[in-house]
C-alpha cells in the first residue's frame, strides 16, 4: 500500500522534504515502517530519536499501520 508520511523539524531537514510517499506492505507494524524508512533514506540511519504518530496520536512500535493511516515522524519536541 502507498502511504503519505509527514516529516517535521530535523527529520524534514535531513530528508529535504516535509512530506514523502512510501510503499509499505499490508498489515506491517510501526517497526516495519521504520525499517523501510531507513532503507529508503539512509541519512536517517544515524538519527533514530524520533517517534511515530498515526492519525495524530503517538503509536507504539508494534502498532499495525493500516491503509490510509496518516503517518508522521516526530523528532524530539521543543515547544513552550
Amino acid at each position: 500500500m502507498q502511504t503519505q508520511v509527514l516529516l517535521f523539524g530535523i527529520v524534514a531537514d535531513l530528508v529535504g522534504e516535509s512530506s514523502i510517499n512510501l510503499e509499505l506492505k499490508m498489515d506491517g507494524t510501526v517497526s516495519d515502517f521504520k525499517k523501510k524508512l531507513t532503507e529508503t533514506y539512509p541519512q536517517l540511519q544515524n538519527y533514530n530519536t524520533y517517534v511515530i504518530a498515526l492519525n495524530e496520536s503517538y503509536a507504539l512500535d508494534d502498532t499495525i499501520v493500516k491503509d490510509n493511516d496518516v503517518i508522521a515522524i516526530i523528532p524530539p519536541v521543543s515547544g513552550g
Partner: protein
Amino acid sequence: MSNISIKLTTDKLSLDECYNFVDDPTCGGIDIFVGTVRNHTKGKKVKKLDFSAYGPMAIKEMELIAEKALEKFDVLKIAIHHAEGMLQIGDIPVIIAVSAAHRVAAFEACQFAIDTLKETVPIWKKEHFSDGEVWVNAHP
C-alpha cells in the same frame, strides 16, 4: 468544552484573553505561566526563534493536557495558547492560565501543563544565531 481554551496561532498571544477565559466568579486564584524568548542559550546569543508545529496533532495533544489537568487537579478552567512562526526576543511562545477555588491547585495544574506540553506536544523550535541555526533538543 467550555472550560478549556486551546489555541495554536501565528497571531500575537494575549495575556488578557487567557486571563479573561479562565476568570470565574467561583475562583479565588489564577496562575499564569508565560514562556518568553530568551536572548541567550548555553552562552550563545539568540537572535530569533522559529516555531513549527504539526498543527492538528499539536492541538489534540494540548487538549489532552487540558483534560488531564482538569481531571487530576481541583481546578476550574484552563487555557493553553501556543504561537507558531518566527518570534523575536521578548515575544511569547506560550501562555498557560489555570483558575481554581484555591491557589495550590492552580499552581500545580499550571506546572503540570507546561511540563507535559514540553514533552508531548509536536512543536519544534529552531534557534537562529548570528552564525547559523539549530533545532532545539534534536539531539537529546
